[in-house]
């Protein structure tokens, strides 16, 4: 009875409730300036996850950098001319001076290690120490570039039109600031060259900016749209303000708590304001009922009390279901999803507390004549919307069997579609095709070896293992095998250095472009190389004890599946050519694969959990498993339909969509709860008869009156999320589309199929 006393308290002391809320909101608002975003895809999985620990270990073993900015330089007439090379040299020089750049390991024309032989002298050193001054020097550079397979597809495209400067960053460096400085450096160069500034730090930064855009621009627009929609529905400004005020207060309390507790905002939680705004629309049922009641009684306080009494149970249970739907996310493996689940669950609880305190408090201030004026239109008999809803329910209630059979056919089709769903998270595809990131990624992928990087760590289990010629040749064979795959652009290993040195020592004779015969020769070659090369050159591909080699695999796509193909290919190669070594994948491409599989696992787990939890809540609410089953149908039906469409369309089923499908259970079930609760209430209020005519009449009444609340709720929800269809990142768009269609479809299916099912199962339900 706590809720009732809360309502009473709020009606008696409305001012106190309002001022307390305002104070609370201001208090939580103070946390906002401390906001931090986290756009690092690695943080999708916890720090202690195997893949992150392993990747960190690989980074350490092979002295790899966590972050690298790639600067692409393209010239349609070729980059190998004095002007462009001069620019590249100047740009590289400027980049080397930037704070936070690991200058010693920047690789571009002027800094990358080249191994050549000139007039019998072995030369290991920077490819182009300074910009060429004569045409002859340019031609010599061209010869050096295309004569060294280590450089082709890495710093020069096969057509000679694109080059890249790889700029690794020191730990803790601000990638966004450095990328900006690099943009300023290239902007200072006049000429026909095109420049691309890409890489993880740039992507993260762009991502962060888009997240702020979503929170700062799209969320307020969503709020405006909802405000207008509410105003159109109720034609009462103070009511519209109440709804929005409640939503805003809940958003500020939730986000304030998140920020105050020190959590950074991820892609998922950046959507929280829109979600909370939409969830706040559940209080539409309170207003909806209040209008009807006021019209009947013309006593404001009594109407408030009665409204709260009538809707309290469904509102409480829908809130419970929504909370549970989001709380299920706490059991997921993906960190941002957990945070998001906790955040929205918290926000939903806050919203419901407001439903029983702030809303009744504000209602006491609404002028009676205004309510009277607005409520005039609120009549289930007169209202066009209400009549429309009644007609839909009539179809279900009078032709239940046909309706059910049509539904079954649709379900079958949807299952066929859902079977074609393929789970894939492609982080680059999260940006729109016209975005700077996608453009740069596409251009660099076409010109060079591939932007998505995976590693295969070959571990021979004992020191010096890799100096054995058979191990070297095995590595080389594995590379050639991988390079036959369409997704693989370029591979790179210590064997490439060994072959290169062998050839160069023998006066560039192609016959010697091979792994030499003895381990000592390999050892001496690499020693010779390490005497003049940058330490990182060898460290990146082999550990100091020569026990482990790191084979670099550049992929042409960020699709998670690409790395799986590489792993399978490596396995197949090992089966065909056994070697006493293990091969373990690593790198960002591997991380994406693991994460992708976690998303799939989470999807199955989350859906399963949500289905169970929601069923339990329904069964508790209705005190009947049978009613719970009935209420379940529109819900499952909706989700299956959407999965079917996703499958047929061929859209990647990614993390945001997978999260949405879990959540949608908790949100879409609201409609069933409202419908069935009010239906049964109505049957009791109208005398308790459960014969066919009485049930049908009650169904039609429910469809027309609380049904209108359901429709309004769905429309508001959809209106809020429709904004996200125009959002700058594709996951936001996908979420927007998902929620809009889910809300509309589930509202429709609730009003159509619940009557059909209730009529079909009437005898069993009311026995």
């Amino acid at each position: 009875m706590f809720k009732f006393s809360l309502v009473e308290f709020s009606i008696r002391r409305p001012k106190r409730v309002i001022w307390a809320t305002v104070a609370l909101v201001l208090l939580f608002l103070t946390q906002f300036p401390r906001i931090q975003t986290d756009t690092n895809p690695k943080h999708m999985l916890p720090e202690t996850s195997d893949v992150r620990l392993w990747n960190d270990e690989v980074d350490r073993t092979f002295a790899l950098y966590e972050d690298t900015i790639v600067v692409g330089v393209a010239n349609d007439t070729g980059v190998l001319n004095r002007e462009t090379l001069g620019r590249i040299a100047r740009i590289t020089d400027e980049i080397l001076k930037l704070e936070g750049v690991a200058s010693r390991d920047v690789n571009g024309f002027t800094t990358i290690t080249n191994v050549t032989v000139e007039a019998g002298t072995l030369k290991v050193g920077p490819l182009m120490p300074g910009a060429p001054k004569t045409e002859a020097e340019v031609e010599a550079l061209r010869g050096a570039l295309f004569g060294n397979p280590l450089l082709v597809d890495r710093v020069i495209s096969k057509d000679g039109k694109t080059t890249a400067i790889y700029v690794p960053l020191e730990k803790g460096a601000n990638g966004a600031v450095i990328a900006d400085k690099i943009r300023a450096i290239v902007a200072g160069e006049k000429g026909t060259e095109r420049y691309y500034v890409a890489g993880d730090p740039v992507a993260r930064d762009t991502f962060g900016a888009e997240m702020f855009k979503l929170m700062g621009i799209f969320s307020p627009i969503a709020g405006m749209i909802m405000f207008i929609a509410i105003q159109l529905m109720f034609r009462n400004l103070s009511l519209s303000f109440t709804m929005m005020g409640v939503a805003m207060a809940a958003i500020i309390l939730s986000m304030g708590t998140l920020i105050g507790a020190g959590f950074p905002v991820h892609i998922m939680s950046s959507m929280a304001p829109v979600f909370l705004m939409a969830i706040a629309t559940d209080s539409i049922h309170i207003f909806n009922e209040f209008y009807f009641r006021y019209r009947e009684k013309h006593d404001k306080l009594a109407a408030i009390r009665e409204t709260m009494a009538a809707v309290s149970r469904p509102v409480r249970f829908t809130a419970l279901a929504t909370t549970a739907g989001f709380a299920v996310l706490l059991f997921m493996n993906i960190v941002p999803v957990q945070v998001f689940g906790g955040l929205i669950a918290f926000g939903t609880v806050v919203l419901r507390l407001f439903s029983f305190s702030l809303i009744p408090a504000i209602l006491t201030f609404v002028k009676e004549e205004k309510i009277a004026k607005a409520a005039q239109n609120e009549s289930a008999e007169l209202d066009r919307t209400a009549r429309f809803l009644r007609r839909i329910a009539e179809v279900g209630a009078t032709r239940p069997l046909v309706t059910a059979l049509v539904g079954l056919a649709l379900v079958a089709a949807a299952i066929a579609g859902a079977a074609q769903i393929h789970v894939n998270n492609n982080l680059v595809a999260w940006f729109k095709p016209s975005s700077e990131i996608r453009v740069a990624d596409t251009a660099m992928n076409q010109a060079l070896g591939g932007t998505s990087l995976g590693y295969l760590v070959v571990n021979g289990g004992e020191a010096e293992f890799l100096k054995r010629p058979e191990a070297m040749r095995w590595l080389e064979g594995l590379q050639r095998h991988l390079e036959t795959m369409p997704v693989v652009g370029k591979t790179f290993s210590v064997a490439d250095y060994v072959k290169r040195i062998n050839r160069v020592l023998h006066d560039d004779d192609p016959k010697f472009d091979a792994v030499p015969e003895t381990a000592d020769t390999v050892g001496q070659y690499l020693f010779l190389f390490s005497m003049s090369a940058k330490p990182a050159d060898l460290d990146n591909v082999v550990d100091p004890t020569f026990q482990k080699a790191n084979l670099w695999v550049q992929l042409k796509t960020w699709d998670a599946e690409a790395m799986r193909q590489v792993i399978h290919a490596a396995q197949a190669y090992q089966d065909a050519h056994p070697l006493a070594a293990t091969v373990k994948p690593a790198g960002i491409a591997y991380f994406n694969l693991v994460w992708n599989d976690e998303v799939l696992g989470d999807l199955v787990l989350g859906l399963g959990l949500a289905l169970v939890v929601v069923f339990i809540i329904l069964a508790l609410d209705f005190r009947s498993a049978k009613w719970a089953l009935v209420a379940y149908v529109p819900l499952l039906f909706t989700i299956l339909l959407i999965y079917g469409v996703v499958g047929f369309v061929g859209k990647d089923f990614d993390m945001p969509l997978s999260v949405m499908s879990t959540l949608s259970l908790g949100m879409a079930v609201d409609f069933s709860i409202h419908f069935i609760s009010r239906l049964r209430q109505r049957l009791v209020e109208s005398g308790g008869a459960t014969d066919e005519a009485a049930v049908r009449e009650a169904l039609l009444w429910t469809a027309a009156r609380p049904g209108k609340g359901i429709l309004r709720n769905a429309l508001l929800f959809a209106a809020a999320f429709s904004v996200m269809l125009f959002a700058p990142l594709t996951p936001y768009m996908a979420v927007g589309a998902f929620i809009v269609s889910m809300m509309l479809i589930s509202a429709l299916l609730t009003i159509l199929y619940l009557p059909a099912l209730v009529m079909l199962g009437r005898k069993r339900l009311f026995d």
Partner: protein
Amino acid sequence: MKRWWIRIIVALLPLVLASQAWAFTGEEVMRKSQAAFLYPGKDFKARVVMKLINKDGQERVREMTMLRKNTGDAGGDQKYFMYFFQPADVKEMAFMIHKYPARDDDRWMFIPAINMVKRIAAQDKRSSFVGSDFTYEDVSGRDIEDDTHALEREEKVGSRDCYVVKSTPKGADADFGSKTTWVDKANFLPLKEEQSDKKGARYKQFSADEVTNVKSIPTVVKRTMKNLQTGHRTEVAYLKTDYDLGIEDSLFSERFLRQPPRKWVE
């Protein structure tokens, strides 16, 4: 012409050393330091053990015999001969440098596995010496004229009084932006050196960890170079150090690179 000047200055060195009241310039300190650190004796031999240690503490060992012979005075030409013992698979590899202060060195490497002597281009004195944190310049010296040297102050390192000299490259060819050297006032050995990169950030740090007299020549027998940015460091110990052994000039030739006399490399 330059050589001539150097000779004069070197010839005057004993005088300079004798007079404590003499106020040195930074350049003079560095010149004397170079002579004391890299040019003592007519020739020199040591068994050098280098430990290359990464930031996780993993060690790689390089062990070699190093021979040096001055062909001129301090600051002049030198010849180096290095014969490797470790890592095991590079045993018998030999490396020879003819060092000329004002121009590129000549370098040769003998690769026993394919029985080949190869000339190696010396385009980059800044590159790492056998994979260690020392560059070729750190090992065999940098031309004094390449930098401007300013005597900044006097300071103690441990119990030793030192000159503190800041050296700034005149050209852009150095791998550092500036370096500061603490030079022992008594024997002119560099006891400490701090290098900054071109952005002014701390880059590398040298320390002379142990100094002993060998044939009454103060010699740094233990030294460390640490890369402060990568956490990688190299510890070097000079064992069996000796001076003025009478190493023949003919040793520093391609023929002996393939088959050096036992007595010199063991």
